[in-house]
């Protein structure tokens, strides 16, 4: 019988399947914004899987890392978008 905590390991495996789907889009995407959309989606899924990992192993530090990762990936997305649209910074 699986308990609730180890269910989150299955969640992480399913989420890595989503990451694979998004990586296919990053590799195939015909234009640069397509690839950025794929990377943005990967970022969100990675944040959620970090929270799930932290719950599965009952390690709070993973969730703190997820918060910092969310803010940093947001800033990186903004900068890539700014770079793509050209013009002044």
């Amino acid at each position, binding site marked *: 019988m699986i308990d*609730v905590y180890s*269910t*989150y390991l299955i*969640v992480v495996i*399913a*989420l890595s*399947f*989503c*990451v*694979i*789907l*998004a990586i*296919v*889009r990053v590799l195939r995407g015909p*234009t*640069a*914004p*397509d690839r*950025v*959309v*794929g990377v*943005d*989606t990967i970022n*969100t*899924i990675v*944040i*959620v899987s970090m*929270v*799930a990992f*932290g*719950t599965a192993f*009952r390690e*709070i530090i993973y*969730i*703190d890392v*997820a*918060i910092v990762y*969310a*803010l940093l*990936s*947001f800033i990186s*997305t*903004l900068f*890539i*978008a*700014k770079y*793509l*649209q*050209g*013009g002044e910074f």
Partner: protein
Amino acid sequence: MIFDLVIYVLIGIGLFFNILAGIGLLRFPDVYTRLHAGTKCTTFGSIFLIGSVILLGLKMWWEKDTNGSVLALHSALALVAILLTNPVGAHAIARAAHRSGIKPAQAVIDELSEEPMNVTTDERRGGD
């Protein structure tokens, strides 16, 4: 027992929408429609997955485990971070895509490209 069932249902809904986001990224034809799938579905899936973690933390807290409070509060903060940053990032990508000259595929109308041409209002008033 019922509590576990609620958590399993929340996890199921969250996973379904996250996988849907991946499939949508592959199936849609251009940047804007892919953004629809990539933003909305991951945000909604995250709400349910992290919501299940918050419920679990609250239950641990109820059973006098201080780790539970930390788990619930920090996961809630991560959820707030996702909810605030995801739409803004999508908006930034969409604007950058439009300014770098990508037209929406199969578009019926594109008012942003034909910006100065805003005569239809006056024409209709004259017609009436």
